[in-house]
């Protein structure tokens, strides 16, 4: 007699899996941290997404720094140029993806990261090295992102961001 596991793991049995959605769309906020990343994020925004939204830049009332609720004074610009409170966007997010170009200091990461920490929202950092970045350039950017991202990816082509967002059902 066949065991339970042997009977239930055939391709035939796979046909009886429940064919119903098993998740709700996740709100994913994709934020460019520097000028070069903005172009990548803008291009991505042209695609069709479930609940992903894209932001071209971050700005502050005064120079950014970590701590002391600085995230309360940070603002995002969406692709239409509207200014939106960072905290409001993070509050509505399931995941925040910060995109930075290797070599950039990505200082805004500290403020976004703190906003995410305050709201218990996961932050992922994505560094584009475009196959040409030096180790030093990557290190510079990693250093700024590392304390604030629970997942960091150094990718050598920008197509990866789209793959990642599709994989995450953005």
């Amino acid at each position, binding site marked *: 007699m*066949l*065991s*339970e*596991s*042997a009977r*239930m*793991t*055939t*391709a035939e*049995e*796979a046909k009886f*899996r429940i064919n119903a959605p*098993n*998740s709700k769309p996740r709100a994913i906020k994709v934020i460019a941290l520097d000028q070069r990343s903005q172009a990548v994020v803008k291009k991505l925004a042209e695609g069709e997404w479930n609940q992903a939204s894209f932001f071209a830049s971050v700005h502050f009332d005064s120079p950014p720094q970590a701590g002391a609720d600085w995230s309360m004074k940070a603002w995002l610009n969406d692709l239409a140029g509207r200014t939106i409170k960072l905290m409001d966007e993070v509050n509505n997010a399931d*995941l925040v993806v910060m995109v930075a170009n290797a070599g950039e200091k990505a200082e805004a990461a500290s403020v976004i990261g703190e906003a995410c920490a305050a709201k218990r929202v*996961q932050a*992922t950092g994505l560094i584009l*090295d475009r196959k040409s970045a030096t*180790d030093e350039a*990557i*290190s510079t950017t*990693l*250093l700024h992102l*590392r304390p604030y*991202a*629970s*997942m*960091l*990816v*150094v*990718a*050598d*082509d920008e*197509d*990866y961001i789209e*793959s*990642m967002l*599709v*994989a*995450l*059902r953005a």
Partner: protein
Amino acid sequence: MLRKEQNELITRTGPGTPTGQLFRSYWIPALLAEELPENECPPVRVKILSERLLAFRDTEGKYGLIDEFCAHRGVSLWFGRNEENGLRCPYHGWKYNTDGQCIDVPSEAPESGFCQKIKLKSYPLVKIGPALWTYMGPPEKQPPLPEWEFAKVPDSHSFLSKRFQEANWLQALEGGIDSSHVSFLHSGDLESDPLFKGAKGNKYNLGDTRPVFEVVEQPGGLYIGARRNAEEGKYYWRITPWVMPCFTMVPPRGDHPVHGHFWIPIDDENCWAYSFDYHATRPLTDAERNAMCEGKGIHAATIPGTNFIPTANKHNDYLMDRAAQKAGRTYSGVEGIAIQDSSLQESMGPIVDRTKENLVSTDNGIIMARHRLMRAAKALADKGVTPPGVDPAHHHVRSASIVLPPDQPFKEGAKEALVVKEGVPHASV
């Protein structure tokens, strides 16, 4: 998730498929060397990449990997007589050499030259270390031989096992890339398995169950770094290299041997899990070798006389022990790291439907590996671009476990440790 067509692209490895073509760019393990232990030993059936083949070792010790079936009437040459530098079909006596060339057709006069017109498909088969390797791609594109460290160290330093796994190769590979499952599924084994226990690094593993991950591309594939807190604000890093298409190496623990895997498609619904252990600078001890033979560490006990079918397998529900699960002796109720992995990967079904999955950001290693596999398969199919991992220089990688200052990227801080250095042990905590 993957779209349906992406899942098809990346899981199918038979002849003519893009990912099949990708696999056919590499030297891959076809058998354990011990499966053909001596000249004129019995031939062995080999099914890889959805092709039925037969491996044999002739009178002079030459290895051959040829079409399993006689060109005459389609008999399996597994029944053949391995004699006088060839394999003779027992049905009508047709004989083949290790290149698949027919060298005798008894019913035809030798001077007719008939047998010269008969040749079975064959692939090169080469012994390097404890494995026999084959290359199944176009002969004109055959790359240099592989240079994996575990296969280059003396035989006394290395151990290789294999087991049959009833799941698509990608399900198995993704388990090797997914470091985050270790804190759950294998948590019971860190302090009990003889090939893991006692390492200082285990303390960090068990003390910080929420590692943070960094995924970095490297020429042959990826490095996946898992970061945990160590003393004085430093980080304990466990760095896993993945080299395309299917090689991964587990980060070391203390002075234990280092282990890793190749997952080789048998067909689209089954694969071989090859598992190696080696030490770069010393022979394995008898105790270590015995533990590996018994199925400890990443190895699995298999049923003697079968084709490497694990003792605990889906036909006996993996010897599920609910009492052990409840008591916390094992996390899933299944014993042994290899079978803990295979039981769950097989439970997904022969080819898991990735359109239904819900990945999270800690799955970026898996997402990146899929991305690179698909990109390489397409580039090869469309433009003939040689994929990463073919160049033997890409094989000179190591895993590492290392403590670094908080501001140091692992790729920089562990730069030396991630490259093979003859005579130097792995960086290990």
